[in-house]
């Protein structure tokens, strides 16, 4: 008889461990990128669309650049954008969610509706517009993505805040005269941590998707900086001559996304948070 609601915190722990291991691996390889990559990712050569060889483990692309090196360096940019953007979104989301949930009333309505406007806006349109207006630089991409995911994190924070703020011991604290701010930080915030952790890892997975999708559409960091989505898009034309130009970035993207999903699942089971 298997009880599926609590597969055991042990399962959660092992998933978290796996996720962290994968994450560590990715971060280390990409951080050490320039020293680990066998070639300069921008170095062109006449040896284009070559298959895998001792020299080029994953072959070369249409202007002779080494695919493996481009994957490693591309990973740096992709992961950098992802982490920073989510960090910014988290900061923004927590602040707005706390503010909105705690203060309630008109402020809550206004903030939530303003966030609704962002929520309703097609992600890609926003990204296309920001990128076209301001240029496809890394900071602009970070900004765009952070803006897009802030509403989600704000909502996640607001939910528990709304219910918690009515709890008895919070009322008690208030009646004794503890300041609102202290109540917010000491009582409310810790309860919000669990869902936030889970949601953040989900958002990280989603962000990898968004970043690579944007660069797939041509809105990512411009050449010659490599990035996974762009490599996937460029590789499409010559897929049949050199499948690795497509399979390589595809695997990289899947691996990165998988890392965060594993983490999210592990956290969810460990912290026993029921999904929505």
């Amino acid at each position, binding site marked *: 008889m298997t009880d599926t609601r609590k597969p055991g915190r042990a399962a959660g722990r092992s998933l978290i461990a796996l996720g962290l291991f994968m994450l560590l691996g990715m971060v280390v390889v990409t951080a050490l990128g320039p020293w680990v990559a066998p070639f300069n990712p*921008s*170095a062109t*050569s006449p040896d*284009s669309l070559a298959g895998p060889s001792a020299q080029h483990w994953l072959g070369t692309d*249409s*202007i002779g650049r080494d695919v493996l090196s481009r994957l490693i360096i591309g990973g740096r940019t992709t992961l950098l954008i992802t982490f920073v953007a989510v960090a910014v979104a988290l900061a923004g989301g927590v602040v707005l969610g706390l503010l909105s949930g705690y203060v309630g009333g008109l402020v809550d309505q206004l903030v939530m509706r303003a966030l609704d406007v962002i929520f309703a806006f097609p992600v890609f349109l926003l990204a296309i517009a920001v990128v076209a207006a301001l240029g496809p630089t890394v900071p602009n991409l970070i900004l765009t993505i952070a803006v897009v995911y802030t509403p989600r994190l704000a909502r996640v924070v607001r939910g528990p805040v709304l219910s918690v703020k009515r709890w008895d011991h919070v009322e008690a604290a208030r009646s004794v005269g503890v300041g609102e701010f202290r109540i917010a930080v000491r009582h409310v915030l810790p309860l919000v941590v669990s869902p936030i952790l889970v949601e953040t890892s989900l958002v990280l997975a989603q962000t990898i998707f968004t970043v690579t999708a944007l660069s797939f559409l041509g809105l990512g960091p411009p050449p010659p900086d490599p990035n996974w989505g762009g490599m996937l898009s460029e590789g499409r*034309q010559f*897929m049949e001559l050199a499948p690795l130009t497509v399979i390589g970035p595809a695997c990289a993207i899947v691996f990165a996304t998988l890392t965060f999903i594993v983490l999210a699942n592990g956290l969810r089971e460990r912290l026993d948070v029921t999904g929505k």
Partner: protein
Amino acid sequence: MSHPGPTNEELELWLPTVALGVQRRSLLQLALMGAGLAASPSLLAQSGVPKRGGTLTIGADADPIGLDPVTLTAFSSYDFTAQLYTGLLRWNAEMKIEPDLATGYLAPNDTTYIFRLRQGVKFHNGQPFTAEDVKHTFDRIMDPASASPSAVLFASVKAVTVVEPFTVKFELKAPSATFLSYMATNPNGVIVPRGVVDLRTKPVGTGPFVFESYEPGQQFVLKANPNYYEDKQPYLDTLVFKFFKDQASLVSALRSKAIDMTWFKDPKVSAQIVKGSRELVSAPGKTSRTFPVWFNIKAKPLSDVRVRRALSLATDRKACLQTVLGSGAGKVGAMVPESQIGGYDGVSPLPYYKTDVAAAKKLLTEAGYAGGLDLGDYIVVAANALDVQCAQILQQQWAAAGIKVNLKPMETAPLIGLWLKGDYTIMSIALSWSPDPDAIVSRLLSTHSQGKGIGMADAQLDKMIEDARAILDVPKRAAAYQQIQKHVADQAYLLQIYQYPLRWEAWWSYVKGYVPLAANIRTFVRAAYISK
């Protein structure tokens, strides 16, 4: 008689009035071709008798933006206007001018052209074609309210007069060697009917195909014109253009025979697809454009000719060509592509074309940049993969000589804005095919809006360009353009890297009789037929 060529008496009447070399040559051509206009395509068609009927499906990568030849500005519309409209003259497969709606012309002096028009031609709506339509077309072109791009090209035209119902006279302000080329170019010189208002969405012309329907983003359907004046053409019943958004889907569509014919921007893609099947034909077409690197020479450091020459020396044009286009797909380029009068053949020596990084460094030191130089943003059209690739290679080549640039791929719309104003340091944007070398080099005139924007002020070059415009003798004109190119390369006002065909066409071998044109418009669809 369906195509009245000049009779023998008329030939005798006309020949003695010829003043200069090119007219004579053209008239001889006209005389030879007079009776058998259908001759040239069939000379080129490999196998036998054209079959009637059938539908040809062509893969297109861009929707047309407007179908009125007088007002349209987008290159993507040209493919469609080439089927719908014809002009007084046209280009043949060898890129020589031949008669079309005109059966011949007379040039009593070097600023007057009297065209004899074909009789019995009808527009798609049944309206008969006469000299009045020619006048109407050019009135519209010259009218500022039309905002016609052709207005700039025909700026030398002083007056268009209807002499008789089938004779029309053009008077120019000054002798112009470009006039006939522009007349032969679709859509600039094509004729539109009087009294028809909305040509933009309901085109009516004299071309081999009639507009049937258009679903944006999906397909554009044309039907054969039963009244087309060229004997027996078009052979096809229906012509369909299907729209695809990118090269990958064009490849797949061609392979699976969802389309019969298409063209690719990247020669490597074209080579790949043809490798896949013996029944696929690929024709590179003639080199028709170059990849330029424009400089803004108003301010330092690019105002210093030594810096510019250093850039030219640091560039390895052959390596760019090899890596970006692959072998056999293009040539080293200069201002004028090979298919034009005076075009560069890709091999003759030009100043500062021979790669020499050491010499480049030396020039930089002389100019005061011994420790290297940072030129800022190098702007390139993001949507053109080939351009971006070449720009990356150039960036590396220049870096080897100590010159640093920051590659900045940009969307076309804002890029054009900057380009028009000259608001850049270094930029690469290729010009689309132009019918005459003058259109290319005149951008470097100090009086031209582009020349002004980038700071051109070379009086000697100005004179060379203006003189070359008026030379009617072809070999002399070609020599003049060679001189211009040498001068431009010597001063390194801009860099030209390579020249290549704008598109590489590919089609299934059951499509016969088709010839790709350097002008990059599919006028030879009229001569194509399907033989399965």
